[in-house]
């Protein structure tokens, strides 16, 4: 637990001082929303469905760029090797990296939500909590996947090219569920209306956090 907190603390301090990941994530999410506003010509004046879709596109793009930063940053200057040499269980390392990456993604999701509300004329309804749940679960699932796969992509040749090709198809179920929950939330439906979809998001998260936890040691390997 101490090791987990130490690595997480290191990543958060690094981020607070440099702020590269969050800035990049938020900027990219923002740009995607701007592009979508132009590309969709404000289809039917925005609306919950378009807004939810735009929000998740922004989240996925931001995630592909940023959720891997926590691993890429370690690779630079050989910090990953130092971490692997330290007497820390690889699974703990994975958990810490996952938490850091999810934190940055949630920060980007908050910024993107505010922007999407403005750009797509969405209502701040009572079920903002539902939207929050969807985004947090989505960010967590994406980070679980991205942290595991980023460990692969930073060391395979042509890896940065492959990463989106590997992440996005696997993320599809969470994406469908996330968009459904968000659309329900933005149209003011209660959480109970999207219960099944929240279930899928939770199942996705549990499955891939567990898979990452167990498989991470095989991808960082023995160097």
């Amino acid at each position, binding site marked *: 637990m101490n090791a987990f907190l130490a690595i997480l603390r290191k990543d958060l301090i690094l981020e607070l001082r440099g702020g590269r990941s969050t800035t990049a994530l938020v900027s990219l999410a923002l740009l995607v929303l701007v592009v979508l506003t132009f590309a969709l010509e404000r289809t039917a004046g925005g609306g919950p469905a378009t807004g939810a879709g735009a929000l998740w596109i922004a989240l996925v793009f931001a995630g592909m760029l940023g959720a891997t930063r926590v691993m890429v940053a370690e690779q630079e200057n050989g910090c990953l090797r130092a971490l692997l040499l330290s007497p820390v269980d690889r699974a703990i390392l994975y958990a810490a990296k996952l938490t850091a990456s999810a934190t940055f993604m949630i920060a980007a999701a908050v910024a993107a939500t505010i922007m999407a509300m403005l750009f797509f004329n969405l209502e701040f309804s009572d079920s903002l909590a539902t939207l929050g749940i969807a985004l947090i679960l989505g960010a967590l699932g994406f980070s679980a*996947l991205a942290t*595991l*796969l980023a460990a*692969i992509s930073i*060391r*395979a*040749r*042509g*890896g940065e*090219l*492959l990463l989106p*090709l*590997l992440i*996005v*198809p*696997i993320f*599809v*179920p*969470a994406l*469908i*569920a996330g968009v*459904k929950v968000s659309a329900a939330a933005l149209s003011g439906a209660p959480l109970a209306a999207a219960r*099944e*979809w929240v279930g*899928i998001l939770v*199942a*996705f998260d549990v*499955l*891939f956090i567990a*898979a990452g936890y167990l*498989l991470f040691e*095989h*991808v960082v*390997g023995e160097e």
Partner: protein
Amino acid sequence: MNRRLYGALGLSALTAMLVALYMVFVWVPTEADQGIVQRIFYFHVPCAWVAFASFGLVAIAGIFYLWMGTQIWDDLGYAAVEIGMLFCTLVLITGSLWAKPIWGTWWTWDSRLTTTFVLWLMYGGYLMLRTIADDTEQIARFAAVIGIVAALDVPVVIVSVRLWRTIHPAVLVTRQGGHGLEDPRMVVTLLVSLAAFTLLFAWLLLLRFSELRMRTRLATLARDIALARFRAGAA
């Protein structure tokens, strides 16, 4: 022994395939509602079966590779993913050919279509990792992990996409309990076709697998020779 085995396998696959073709085009009666197009079904379903069996094999090979670390499992996974991608592509194409006259569209985001397409994308990524990156022990480990992760995703994809939408005919098992194939000859044709494709699958797998095994052996030999030369030079 290996050569005789895949000679026999290849021959029986060919025979079974010819019998299946005869049954599909001549023997089996034409389906009443859909007409002649329905006959593609006897190839469509076996292709899907081979694709799913291959992807299952990829995951199993991945687990064993991570567990035992022997090259043979990696070779098996590699051979299986290639065959899986081939047959998954065939499933999508034969499905499209059938859907155009029956549904009036080449493609629709129905649950099974979407699931198959998502699988195709996932294993396409896996195959790209293997082709772009060098063939090292590290890549073998990465591929095993991705093979396992992709297989874990399959049930979630199926559930979520089914909840999302479905119009695909449930041919084999419907909720009413019928299977939609009225004539017993249709069932027989499907079974023969399934057997033919399974033989073809086994033959292709064995062929590709032996080739990869040979490549591994060749690489080991080349390394040993280089090492021996180096030692001779040093002495």
